[in-house]
């Protein structure tokens, strides 16, 4: 069995659907940060059969995890401080998502004005539907797992 060491401060994202960890790595923009990250794929899980786990060593104030709720509300977020779990974060859908997803509507103003921030707002909380702040095109969640 593979062993990945404890982290002192940061997050352990558990119960990620098997195969989704890389997508989450990109959506959290971890590739742009200089943190130690462990990506564990296809770990055994009693509940899920197989699951992915992400461990991120970072200042817990530094990372914005809003997007996780949009990807999968069932991901468990363990907050680690001094090597111990100090909190389990409940994921709630953010009212607005900024700078993470791009609007793909070719008729949207963001398609020609590159400097505009890409913003999606929560249009339907029950269904978890997000729409582009400018053109109101529905965000296609299938893009999240690509």
């Amino acid at each position, binding site marked *: 069995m593979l062993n990945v060491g404890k982290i002192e401060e940061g997050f352990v994202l558990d119960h990620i659907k098997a195969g989704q960890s890389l997508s989450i790595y990109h959506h959290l923009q971890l590739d742009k940060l200089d943190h130690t990250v462990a990506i564990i794929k296809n770990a055994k899980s009693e509940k899920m059969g197989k699951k992915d786990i992400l461990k991120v060593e970072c200042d817990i104030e530094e990372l914005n995890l809003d997007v996780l709720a949009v990807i999968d509300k069932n991901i468990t977020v363990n907050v680690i401080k001094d090597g111990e779990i100090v909190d389990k974060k409940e994921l709630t859908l953010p009212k607005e998502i900024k700078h993470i997803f791009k609007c793909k509507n070719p*008729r*949207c*103003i963001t398609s020609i*004005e590159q*400097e*505009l921030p890409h913003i999606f707002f929560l249009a339907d909380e029950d269904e978890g539907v997000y729409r582009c702040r*400018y*053109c109101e095109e529905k965000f296609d969640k299938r893009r999240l797992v690509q």
Partner: protein
Amino acid sequence: MQEKTVRHLMNPLDFTVEELDKLFDLADDIERDPAKYSKVCEGKKLATCFYEPSTRTRLSFEAAMLNLGGEVLGFSEASSSSASKGESVSDTIRVVSCYADICAMRHPKEGAAYVAASKSRIPVINAGDGGHQHPTQTLTDLLTIRSLKGSLSGFTIGLCGDLKFGRTVHSLINALSRYNDIEFVFISPEELRVPDYITDMLDSKGISYSEVISLEDVIGKLDILYMTRVQRERFFNEEDYVRLKDFYILTKDKMDKAGKDMLVLHPLPRVNEISVEIDDDPRAAYFKQAQYGVYVRMALILTLLGIEV
């Protein structure tokens, strides 16, 4: 000192039903006594920033401001604006804010007016942003119905033609769904049916509607018939356009089956979906609708500028 909040119009639903009532009351008063309003905007300027040609909407806005005693400046296509040099909408509106008191903007891209409003020091009216919103057309439709039917509640409205791509239709259905006791009849070929998100919205509000293909079968029970044009620019395939463009043509024969008080509305321009022989029928209200468009834009300019008469 706290800055005054600037109000814009992006979507017909930006105004509550009560606010719309007030706006339409003002438009009614303008219709009754236009002279009373002929100088109320003296010294004020409307900028018409039209990044794509639209004779009708632009002229209606310009007529509205001129009727109020104000002045008009602007451009009528992107090539005659600094957009052709690559200027962003945000920069353009910041500059226009220095020249004018209010701006009406049309742009082929969806959300352009929203971008302008977010950077503007003056009220911005969305005069059409691609296939997204065209709120002043909806306000025009509502005022026309209220003026000619006496109320925005308690009628059966048939919407006929391109119900899939027609933004005026979607916007009108959304706006009417806030009033009571309205029944919708959607008349379209299978390929141009009203989108699911509209029927889902009606279902969730418990509003009754039906979908049919034949206009003749239902025309007799309608209080209002809203005709639309099948727009060539919405089709990727010329063959589909040619097949569907003549699907509905409102003729005298069909009008003979309609009630004597049924109103015929159309956002204009029409191509051939309403035969010209109908134009003199007292039930044909589409040219009156254009006149109501001026009244409602006058009322809107006054409301957004905060001018009370």
